[in-house]
């Protein structure tokens, strides 16, 4: 059926343009209704004194003390700028306001030049409730470091850092790179100065022909020999280091014998000869006349002085007659002295005795430099040369005391200078788990610092909805971090409540201590069984602000144990 145009046109009124649009009208009415409804709701909330709707969130815990004194931080009103200019990095508080209390070093001199300077609040976002302001999310770091550009200067960092736990998301540690022989990713960093590794070989070592990157601590130490332990079938120790009773001991799981944690339990105290080596490696100089006695572990001049004193006193004691009587000598000039308490006897060596003493001192000095075995003692080999490199030098002046010196040892105290590591949270692991291959290392040159792969074994995210979009992942990660914080807070609160209940006064008794140990264990289980990977955010390892300035690294976690090491904790039980 065919319709005429007239019929069709009759379906639409000729005044259609004058008639109201119902849909639009409905939309207007609905909009009006929504507006009025919101206003009504807002005013209703206001009348009920509920201000949360239009007010910023709670300030962070650290700032609670001036929570209601807005003017302490806010000198400008930035929402207008943010709205109009579509900029997210403008904050309502200036850096000067932050620096009133927090004098920290700049993160990097070139930071944010493209954006006209970064405000503190851009990363440390406030009004988010109980969030640790000092631990901003990694997305702030990555927003620059995923595509780091140079603005006039040079930087020493990798250009594309996205994540720690994916192969190309974070550069390999420089030490690992060097050992692998790959060209380092670092640009402009002075390897020799900043990193505890150097390319040289000791002249008297096997690999003298081929210089390689190795530990630059110029001292001989054999980890494998010291950690060696083998057992009989019945479980009895067959081989190990000898103790004072000439019985084998197993030091393979007792790294703390030498590596003792520092006061912070973060790194380790330096190894000291007197405390750690001297008991087994004495510096014997004359096993016949002075059995078991060592020269001081000091500079060659002091060693020489010690030997001179020892042998001079010995010669005076043995070589000269006992203090002769006053009138035994007729010589008016060379009369023997009467002893005077409080004053050392001023005796003089004769020329012959002085020559003999010099000979003795030279012999003993040579003996102390070279290896010496004690007579039937349990001692291991000793002598300067056993561990140190001894250099013979031409005496500069006629009055120079010695003609040899010890090459400085250069034992590094920190290996990864760009990160802040904390050994204490890793105390549950055996040392060899991370320091792979320590039990087989027979040369000091072996670098036993873990590679990134060792860290990633634990420090990797395992979210179920992982996809290639890192932003999604970070959001998930943030949620996980928040969850973790909440769990930690919960556990902490629970533990503190328990502690308060039992009362601080009896907290030191044995019962209270075991109770605390139980709490501690459950707290540990809570953390261990959580369904997530270990933290991988940037702040976990890196001090954001300059390492020379602010040393902050990680949130404050109250110590929850009496005994810092697992061994002593067991002993307390």
């Amino acid at each position, binding site marked *: 059926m065919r319709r005429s145009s007239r019929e069709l046109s009759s379906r639409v009124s000729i005044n259609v343009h004058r008639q109201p649009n119902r849909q639009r009208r409905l939309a207007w009415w609905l909009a009006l209704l929504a507006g009025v409804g919101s206003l009504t709701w807002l005013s209703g909330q206001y009348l009920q004194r509920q201000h949360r709707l239009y007010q910023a969130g709670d300030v962070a815990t650290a700032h609670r003390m001036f929570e209601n004194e807005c003017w302490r931080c806010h000198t400008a009103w930035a929402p207008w700028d943010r709205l109009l200019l579509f900029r997210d990095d403008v904050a309502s508080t200036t850096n000067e306001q932050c620096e009133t209390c927090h004098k920290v070093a700049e993160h990097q001199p070139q930071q944010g030049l493209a954006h006209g300077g970064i405000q503190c609040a851009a990363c440390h976002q406030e009004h988010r409730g109980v969030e640790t302001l000092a631990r901003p999310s990694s997305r702030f770091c990555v927003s620059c470091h995923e595509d780091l550009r140079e603005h006039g200067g040079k930087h020493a960092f990798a250009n594309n850092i996205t994540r720690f736990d994916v192969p190309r998301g974070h550069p390999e540690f420089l030490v690992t790179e060097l050992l692998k022989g790959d060209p380092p990713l670092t640009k402009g960093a002075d390897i020799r100065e900043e990193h505890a590794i150097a390319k040289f070989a000791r002249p008297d070592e096997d690999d003298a022909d081929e210089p390689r990157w190795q530990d630059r601590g110029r001292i001989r130490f054999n980890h494998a020999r010291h950690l060696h332990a083998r057992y009989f079938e019945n479980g009895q120790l067959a081989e190990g280091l000898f103790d004072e009773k000439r019985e084998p001991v197993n030091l393979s799981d007792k790294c703390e014998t030498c590596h003792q944690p520092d006061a912070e339990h973060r790194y380790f105290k330096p190894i000291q000869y007197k405390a750690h080596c001297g008991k087994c490696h004495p510096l014997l100089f004359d096993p016949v006349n002075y059995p078991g006695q060592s020269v001081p572990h000091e500079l060659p001049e002091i060693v020489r002085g010690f030997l001179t004193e020892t042998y001079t006193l010995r010669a005076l004691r043995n070589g000269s007659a006992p203090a002769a009587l*006053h009138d*035994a000598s007729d010589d*008016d000039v060379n*009369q023997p002295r*009467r*002893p*005077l308490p*409080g004053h050392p006897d001023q005796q003089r060596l004769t020329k012959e005795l002085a020559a003999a003493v010099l000979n003795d001192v030279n012999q003993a000095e040579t003996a102390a430099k070279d290896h010496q075995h004690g007579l039937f003692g349990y001692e291991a080999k000793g002598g300067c040369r056993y561990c140190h490199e001894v250099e013979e030098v031409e005496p500069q002046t006629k009055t120079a005391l010695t003609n040899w010196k010890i090459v400085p040892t250069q034992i590094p105290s920190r290996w990864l200078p760009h990160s802040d590591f904390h050994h204490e949270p890793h105390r549950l692991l055996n040392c060899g788990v991370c320091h792979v291959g320590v039990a087989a290392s027979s040369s000091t040159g072996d670098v036993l610092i873990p590679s990134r792969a060792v860290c990633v074994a634990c420090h990797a995210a395992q979210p179920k909805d992982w996809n290639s979009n890192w932003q999604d992942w970070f959001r998930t990660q943030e949620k996980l971090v928040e969850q973790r914080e909440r769990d930690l807070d919960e556990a902490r609160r629970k533990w503190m409540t328990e502690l308060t209940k039992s009362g601080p006064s009896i907290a030191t008794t044995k019962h209270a201590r075991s109770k605390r140990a139980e709490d501690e264990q459950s707290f540990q289980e809570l953390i261990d069984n959580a369904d997530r990977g270990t933290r991988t955010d940037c702040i976990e390892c890196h001090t954001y602000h300059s390492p020379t300035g602010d040393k902050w690294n990680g949130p404050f976690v109250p110590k929850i144990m009496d005994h810092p090491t697992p061994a002593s904790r067991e002993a307390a039980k």
Partner: protein
Amino acid sequence: MRIGIPKTWIEFIPAPQAAVGGCPFATIRFAVCFVFVWMASTIVAAADESSPKFVGSSSCAAAACHGGLAGNKVVGSEFPLWAARDPHARAYSVLLNGLSKQMAARLKLSNKTAHKSVECLSCHSPATARKEFSITGPAPLASVDCEQCHGAAELWLTPHRRKDWKQLSPEVKQRLGYKDLSDVLTRATLCTDCHVGGAERDVNHDLLAAGHPRLSFELSTFHANWPKHWPRKMDESKHPVSNAKSNDPPGSLFEAKLWAVGQVVTAQRSLELLSQRAAHAQTWPEFAEWNCFACHHDLESPSWWQLPHRQKQPHDALSWNPWPYAMLEPLARQTFGPEFRGSASPISATLRLRYRFTTLLPPAADIVSEANEAAKLLQAWAKRLNQAESAQQLLSPVALKSLRQSLVAKEGEQLVARDWDSATQVFLAINALRYAEKAARGSLDSADEAQVQAVLDSMRKSLDFQDGYRGPRQSELRELDTLLSTPP
């Protein structure tokens, strides 16, 4: 002004016949007499009017006089021996070393340098100290040289070169400024001038705090350890034992006198110094008058200082510096007999002072008068010990032996082991009296030689300072009582 010719000198005027040939005897003699009277009166007058000046040791050190080098022969090579071996020869040069510079800075000395300051030079080199002391002006590097002991030689240098010098009486020599050092009392007084000190030469607590060594002077030991530039027998022969039997070897009282007179004179000079210190109100109390170890304790723990107050021993409390007075009591018991603590004895005067020093602020006026009084008594005592006749009896070999035994027997117990100073004085006294007794007997052998040596050896072990920043072993000092209660 006294004018007079000593009788002795007239006797040694050259014989007139030899001098002037055949001239009339009486006239020549009169003329010569007149000339000598005039010369002598001028010299003696000058000696009285102003003290003679120093001429410098170079005047003595001519090769033909005292500057010869005759190997180990002492006579004739006194000056080289002094220069090479005597520590007094280095008294000036120590003022140039680092410690002296530090001390000068700490003391804020007027001249800023030790070797230019009168405070130091008055002992270390008196000829440098003041221009008016020396003929040639301030003489640097003078140190404690010839004239500091033998007397300023302005007046006696010329007569000293004459052959008749040895025949002059000590009184004449003394009037010319020459000191008779064969007299033990003179020698002791001379040494204590600096080794104890006086008003101008006060080694007070300021000086000690700045770094000056403590002056713990014991004449006998210091004398024995002093590299001498004269034959030892010269001293001994001038103090013979008179009542020795003919077949005994000749004995000498020199050593005995040296110890006894040295002790008393040291105490006397210390008391005089105390009186001068107390009279000086600005610096009183002077801490150097107290026992060092009463305040200064070990810098290492455990130390007796850290004991609770109840557990401290009496000798840990505040006490008078015991060094100069430690040996007075046993010596007085020997000299004065049972009444040695009588009201007029020097011991009771000294004991009275000792109780004053158990507080930190003893009244200065009382101290001045009591110290002067005690010093006078001690001076008389020293003279008595020094006199030849009384010394024969007081310091006889038997007396010396009983004195030595009284130091180590039970009755001497209270003197010993109270503190380090007293114990050290006992140690030095036993040693000195041993030598003195042997010298007085004139023999080398002694029955209890080995025992004495054993006691001394073990005492020495307790008295020597330990290594490190530790003082004397107070605990071992307490055990010395037990050790010394067995008489050797």
